[in-house]
Structures are given as C-alpha cells and as structure tokens.
C-alpha cells in the first residue's frame, strides 16, 4: 500500500516525539512532527491522510488550525489530542468537523492507534471504491458496451453522446435483447452523474400492488408489514439516474402518479406527510410502440410526451449487417478468455450461417449461440455445425428465410425423417403424403 501520511502537531517536544515514534511503529505510516500550528499549515499541501492536533499551541489555537486545514482540505480527518478536559470545547470541535477528540490520558495511545487504523481502512476502502468506479466507467464506455460499425450504430452513438451532455429524459425503444439497459447504463456512466447511483427498475417484473411502494418508498407503519421505513427507487436515484425498464407495462393509474413525481421533482413516501425533493435523471425503455399504446388508450398521452425526451430506437440485430460478425467475434473472444479456453475463430461457413439467421432474440441470442458454439467446438475454430439456433419463435424464423415452396417442402420432410429415425412410412403418415413421394425425393437426392 502507499505510505499513510500523518501530521502530529504538538508543542511539547517530548510528547510529540513520543507520538511520532509510536505511530511510526507501523511501517506503513510516515509521521511528520510539527511544534506549532503555523509550521504544520505551511506543509499542509503534502495532504496528510490524518492529523493529530494538540488543542493548545503557542501560536494558534487548535480550533483555528482545524478551521484552516479544513478550509483547504475538508476531507482530511483531524483528531484533537488535548490536555483540556472541557466538554464544551470538545463538543464545539466535533461540531466543527474534528474526526475525534482525545484527552491526554492512559487511553490516548490505544485510541490514537485504533483511530489511525480506522482512518487507514476507510481510506483503502475509498480508494478501492474509486478504482471500482473507474473500472465500471471504462466498462461502460460506448465503444466497450456497444460493438458495431454499422451506420445504424454510429447514429446511436451520436445520440447517446448528446444524451450524456444534458439531463434530458431519454426514451429507449427496441426489440428484446437489443441492449436497452446497456445503453441506459452507458449514458449514465458517461454523464456528470456517473459517481451517483444508477438504479434500474423492471416495471414488468413488479406486481402492480407493489410498484408504488417500490418506487416511492414508505414510512414505518404505513401498512401491515411495514416494520421499517423504506426508501424508494426514485429517492435512491436522486442525483443519479433512474432507469424504468418496460415502462409500457405500467398500470395506467400508476402512470398518473409517476407523471406527477417526474413533473414536480418531489414525492411523498406512502404513509408519510413530508414532501421530499428529488432530482433523478430519468431514462425509460420499452419494447412497445408507445405512440400506438397512447392511441389504444393503454398509455397516458401526457406521460408519453413527458418521458419521450430524446428518443433512441435500437435497431434489431438482423438490420445491422456485418455487426453480427463483429459481435460474434467479440463474444467468442470474451467467452474463451473468461473460461480459459484457447481463442477460437469462426469459419466462413459458420459466419454465413449467422448472417442468414434472423435473430429474434437479437444480441442476447447471438451471445448465447456463440457461447454454445465455443463449448461445442473442440478445436480452435467454430464450425457451422457448432452454430445452433434455439429461438422460441422458430416458425417466424423459418418463414423469414423466404425460400421457395419446394425448398420448404424438402426441409419439412427432412425434419420429419430425422424426428422418426428415417421411418418413411411414419413420416409420410404424419405429413399425410404418399410414401412414394418421399422415396422418389430420396432417390433423386432431393432430401
């Protein structure tokens, strides 16, 4: 770990030296000893991690030194170590922001040692948190989160970039699996609000009777089972971003309530009387066409216009051309890396197979297909045979191939023959066609 810098400001040279040597018993500590407040203030630019400050100094009072340190560096913890046993002074110093107040007595050594360890641990946790936040930030850089060179994606990147510069509400639409939540996170982590919370709520996953308490919170005793106060998602996301996924599924009576909260930037917890000011940035997403839902009377028009903000419509994967191959390579590399497998390349045949598929599950489905392909492949290539599509919407995929009726017929017969272990009689019976038809096609190598 880096050196933990401690200032000891103490006018008694003996006691000061004693504290210096004591704190230096921990080799991670670098202790600086000062005999006056002014000497210490002249070196405060070193930015110690902790200050041990004698209250009574020859030049300045401890209170004055505390004020001046915090005027420049309010985050530096200052512990007052004093011969004064005046409770009023202690309270005043703590009120002014002193980290702690120790009277010089038999417990000083232990208290100072423990406080130093506590501050060091906090510092390490803060550093760790800061590093993690940076990592998260990197993870959500546009280029890392959304792969693709297609014109469609370049247009999306430009819109996202605009969204990060203001607090405008963003409405993201797109088929399932197109990455709506990833886009919301990328906007949040690239905006001024990156250090504040990103709170995601999947509206469709919360029963109607619970959604209000989830979003607005409640006071203790608001209803049976409300044993403690609960802070709602709007409050949690205050100063950060609230992502309301599948907002199109929200009950119409609830829509009126959130409209008021979004418009007024204030809410009242269930069972509470106090109005709480909030300031979340709102990003919504839906797989529905909200304009149509408004026409049908399923979605409030006023809320629609309030949340529309900057609309970002994510294209389905099948419309993104070569992006499929870019994403496939990315998913294969990531999966192999995470699972300690040798890197695998995707053969031309496998690529062609990917490019002709419709991907109703979009990027999410592509990822699953590629990960399965990595598992099925023994060597360093993913072959066409390793690419298996398991879309639940197989009929629509089948039709999306847009082939000839003759080819469709052949595919269907092949499917039934495989299913019934090449029992021609059974396959013909199931399809209500003559056996001779199948035999003829087999003879002519049409199957």
């Amino acid at each position, binding site marked *: 770990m880096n050196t933990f810098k401690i200032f000891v400001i103490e*006018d*008694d*040279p*003996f*006691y000061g*030296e*004693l*504290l210096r*040597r*004591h704190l230096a*018993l921990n080799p991670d500590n670098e202790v600086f000893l000062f005999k006056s407040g002014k000497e210490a203030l002249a070196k405060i630019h070193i930015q110690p991690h902790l200050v041990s400050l004698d209250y*009574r100094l*020859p030049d300045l009072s401890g209170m004055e030194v505390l004020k001046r340190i915090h005027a420049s560096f309010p985050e530096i913890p200052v512990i007052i170590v004093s*011969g004064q046993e005046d409770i009023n002074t202690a309270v005043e110093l703590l009120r002014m922001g002193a980290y702690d107040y120790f009277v*010089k*007595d*038999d417990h000083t*050594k232990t208290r100072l040692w423990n406080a130093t360890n506590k501050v060091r641990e906090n510092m390490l946790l803060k550093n760790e948190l800061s590093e993690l936040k940076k990592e998260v930030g990197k993870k959500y850089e546009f280029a890392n989160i959304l792969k693709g060179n297609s014109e469609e994606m370049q247009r999306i990147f430009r819109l996202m970039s605009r969204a990060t510069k203001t607090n405008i509400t963003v409405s993201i639409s797109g088929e399932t699996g197109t990455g709506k939540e990833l886009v919301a996170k990328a906007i949040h982590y690239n905006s001024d609000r990156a250090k504040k919370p990103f709170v995601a709520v999947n509206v469709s996953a919360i029963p109607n009777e619970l959604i209000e308490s989830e979003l607005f919170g409640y006071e203790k005793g608001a209803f049976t089972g409300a044993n403690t106060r609960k802070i709602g998602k709007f409050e949690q996301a205050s100063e950060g971003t609230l992502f309301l996924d599948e907002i199109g599924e929200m009950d119409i009576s609830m829509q009126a309530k959130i409209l008021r909260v979004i418009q007024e930037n204030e809410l009242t917890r269930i069972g509470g009387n106090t109005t709480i000011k909030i300031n979340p940035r709102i990003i919504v997403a839906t797989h529905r066409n909200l304009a149509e839902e408004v026409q049908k009377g399923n979605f409030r028009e006023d809320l629609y216009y309030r949340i529309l903000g900057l609309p970002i419509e994510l294209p389905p994967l099948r419309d993104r051309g070569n992006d499929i191959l870019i994403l496939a390579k990315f998913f294969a590399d990531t999966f192999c890396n995470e699972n300690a497998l040798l890197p695998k390349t995707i053969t031309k045949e496998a690529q062609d197979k990917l490019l002709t598929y419709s991907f109703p599950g979009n990027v999410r489905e592509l990822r699953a297909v590629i990960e399965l392909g990595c598992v099925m492949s023994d060597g360093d290539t993913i072959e066409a045979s390793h690419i298996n599509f398991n879309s639940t919407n197989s009929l629509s995929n089948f039709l999306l191939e847009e082939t000839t009726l003759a080819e469709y017929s052949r595919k269907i017969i092949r499917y039934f023959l495989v299913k019934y272990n090449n029992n021609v009689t059974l396959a013909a019976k199931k399809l209500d066609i003559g056996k001779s038809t199948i035999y003829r096609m087999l003879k002519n190598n049409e199957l």
Partner: protein
Amino acid sequence: MNFNNNKKTSVMSETNLFNLDKLRSYVGNNNADVKDMIALFLEIIPAQKQKLQNALKKSDWGTLNYISHQIKPSLDILGLNATKEKARAIESLAKTGNEEEVIRKFVTELCQELDAICKNLRTEMEKL
C-alpha cells in the same frame, strides 16, 4: 533500574516515583527508543524549569499557566503522577494569579522536584 529488560522499571526518590512501563509501551518496548526519549526529556525539562522560574520572577501567570500545562503529558508518560498533579495545580491557579503565595510555593517545589527527577534519570542513564 535496568533498561535492558522488560521487567517493571521504577525508582522511588524522596518526592517522585517514576515508571518506564508506559514509555516502553509507546515505543514498542524498544530499549534504544527508551534511551533516546529519556535523553530528550533530560534536554527539555531543565529548559522548561528555567522558563517557570523566569516567569515566576516576573509574575507572568500566562507563561506559568502555559508551561505547567505543557509539561503535564511528559510527566504522565514517566509515571510522575505527584509532580504532574502539582503542575496541574499551578496551571489552574495561574489562570487568575489570585493566590500568588501558593503559586510561588508550588512553582518552587515543582522546580525542585524536576531537578530531583532529572538527577535520578541521569543516574540511571549513566548505568546504561
């Protein structure tokens, strides 16, 4: 007194009992540090005693209050409780200067005690 072991180390003089256990605990029971700290104490205290005497001559109660306050923790670290309490009494009386005779008596006694403490500590130092 033996500076080279961990046994409880204390010396009784006519007026003071000093005890190095607390000092040892602060410096991780390191003998070299203990010696350094006693040497520092012997360097500082005579100067502080001189300041007390000068202040007393000038009836400078502010300085008396400050110096007596300042030396208390050092006395405490060496287990010199009786002397520390005398310094505390001077600190308190010197806030107002109302009881001049008592102050004079206490300061004189404190200076004598500091002399005796230093003498004892020097004797111990010579044995090192």
